[in-house]
């Protein structure tokens, strides 16, 4: 019997690794296929400038999706990320432009706003036991209303602080290595992804997020304070929304208080296309980044080809479903 068990464990280990590699390969290959298709279809698609545009266009949705990944791994959902992003942008605007505080303080205000909103959602979910869908739907409406109230339904511009715009669109790398002027936005996205991957893979918070998503009751019975950790996960998600808020404010050089609706579904789509299961317990940061890239590549490519926008909606819908379906077939194979 001893031999048999050892064998089974080893086999499972190997097949696990194989499946894991396949997953990454697969999501990647979907992206590569889309990329090759558009490259062949239009010479303008594959220019370095356009590739850089795609990466920059991925940044905001990608960062939102990073936060949502944690939430979905706990088997939850966050519909409020878009409007919380906007609220954070508005608060940053209030701090920097209306109050004249230094930019770093403004950034912290943005991050704290997002974190606080996430914290409140988390408390509603973990303490008051309100289903995540409803708690974050409520937060979505509240953040949206507050953005308008606080900004007095007017954009807040960062014209007095020209350097604010450089956060996203400047190029620190370009300054160091002339000729390689990749906008900071790209590095912020990948930096945030690294932080997220670290939190998910190497810290207690990531571990408990997976455990809660896998079996919340068992986690609770193991003596883990599920309510606190769940709250922390939503707060973390909120922090990413806050970061996205600072990013979008910098990109648009203004806090636009009416933005944000529809961003939540796009972020969730990126997460799910990236192979994270909505039933919780599993998910990867790399997958989410690839998922976000697939969406923005598709949007950019269809624009470059001047496909009518109504057809663009249909095509995007079909591809979202197909991408997930391919992932499902892969898993079934496993």
């Amino acid at each position: 019997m001893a031999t048999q068990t050892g064998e089974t464990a080893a086999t499972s280990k190997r097949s696990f690794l194989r499946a894991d590699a396949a997953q990454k390969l697969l999501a990647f290959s979907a992206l590569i296929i889309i990329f090759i298709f558009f490259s062949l279809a239009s010479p303008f698609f594959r220019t370095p400038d356009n590739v850089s545009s795609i990466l920059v266009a991925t940044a905001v949705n990608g960062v939102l999706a990073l936060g949502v990944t944690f939430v979905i791994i706990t088997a939850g959902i966050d519909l409020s990320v878009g409007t919380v992003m906007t609220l954070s942008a508005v608060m940053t605007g209030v701090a920097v432009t209306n109050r004249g505080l230094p930019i770093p303080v403004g950034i912290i205000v943005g991050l704290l706003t997002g974190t606080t909103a996430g914290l409140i959602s988390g408390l509603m979910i973990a303490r008051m036991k309100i289903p995540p869908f409803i708690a974050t739907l409520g937060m979505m409406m509240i953040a949206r209303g507050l953005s308008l109230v606080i900004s007095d339904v007017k954009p807040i511009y960062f014209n007095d602080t020209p350097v604010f715009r450089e956060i996203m669109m400047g190029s620190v790398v370009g300054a160091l290595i002339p000729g390689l002027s990749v906008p900071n936005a790209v590095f912020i996205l990948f930096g945030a992804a690294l932080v997220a991957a670290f939190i998910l893979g190497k810290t207690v918070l990531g571990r408990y997020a997976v455990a809660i998503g896998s079996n919340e009751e068992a986690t609770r019975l193991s003596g883990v304070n599920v309510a606190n950790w769940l709250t922390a996960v939503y707060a973390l998600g909120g922090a990413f929304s806050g970061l996205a808020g600072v990013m979008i404010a910098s990109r648009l050089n203004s806090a636009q208080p009416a933005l944000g609706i529809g961003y939540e579904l796009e972020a969730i789509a990126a997460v799910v296309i990236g192979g994270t299961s909505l039933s919780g317990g599993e998910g990867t940061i790399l997958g989410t980044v690839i998922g976000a890239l697939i969406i923005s590549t598709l949007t950019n490519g269809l624009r470059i080809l001047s496909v009518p926008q109504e057809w663009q909606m249909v095509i995007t819908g079909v591809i979202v479903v197909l991408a997930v379906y391919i992932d499902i077939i892969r898993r079934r194979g496993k």
Partner: protein
Amino acid sequence: AAPAATTDTSSSSATTAPAASGDEAASGDEAAKPYIPVISKGFQHQFWQAVKSGSEQAAADFNVDITFEGPESEAMVDKQYEMLQAAIAKNPAAICFAAVDSQAMIPLLEEAQTKGIPVIGFDSGVDSDIPLATAATDNIAAAALAADKMAELIGESGKVAVLVHDQTSRTGIDRRDGFVNEIEAKYPDIEIVNLDYGGGDQLKSTDLAKAVIQANPDLKGYFGANEGSIIGVLNAVNELGKEGEIVVIGYDSGKQQIDAIKGGVEAGAITQNPVGIGYKCVEAAVKAINGETLDKVIDTGFFWYDATNIDSDEIKPLLYE
């Protein structure tokens, strides 16, 4: 920057019969003031906020109460329907109304008519005689003017792209058609390469315009049909370092656009008179309450502005930041 208007003190309470009786319980001591709900097509855009400030100005001048509301997007026909319905339920002295759809609201307008509530249209008309007057911009003519300016600035030939806020709203359709038809009719050497819709979302419009500019390295001009769209175009031009290479023409105003025109990134824009629209429609409503006869059409006008006249006395009051 408020439009000139005479303060008409005789406008107040005597003739507000329908509202007076029911109103007392609701709003106490202010019950004497006539109440005029202003139902707009939106409220989040700066354009609508400017209309709102004009109507508030008029409310102060004529001593009436107004409320200003509109759906979150111009696609939300049914939401506006319910707003109008709720407004009628309040038995107001008059209603100012900008329809998101030229026909769907007619039954409610008929209801208002039956109840003796005068209706004043603004911004865009409805296919009905019920509104006693409509204070509006001729968007088709305005966009055609933008097309003429575009043609002039690019030398009547080359590629241009158009970014519209959405494809179903009246303003979106009129501005698109006004621009496109004018180009097609008068400038055979100009090719419209892309006609896109950015939903008024500044971020999406930015990424969209960037893709279009990347796909058309020889693009000579870009027309943005509302403030959100033109912000996208300006950001795209800016992020790609194409300032001065593309003739950018916009619509409405807003701080970013004003700065771009002053800075030479944007060639110029069409402005309507949003503050005037808001002011005029409330003014007309007050006149209707007082039983005065009104002209059916109150043309609030549109104007081309660029770096040369942006600070002029004629243009400056029409712009909002």
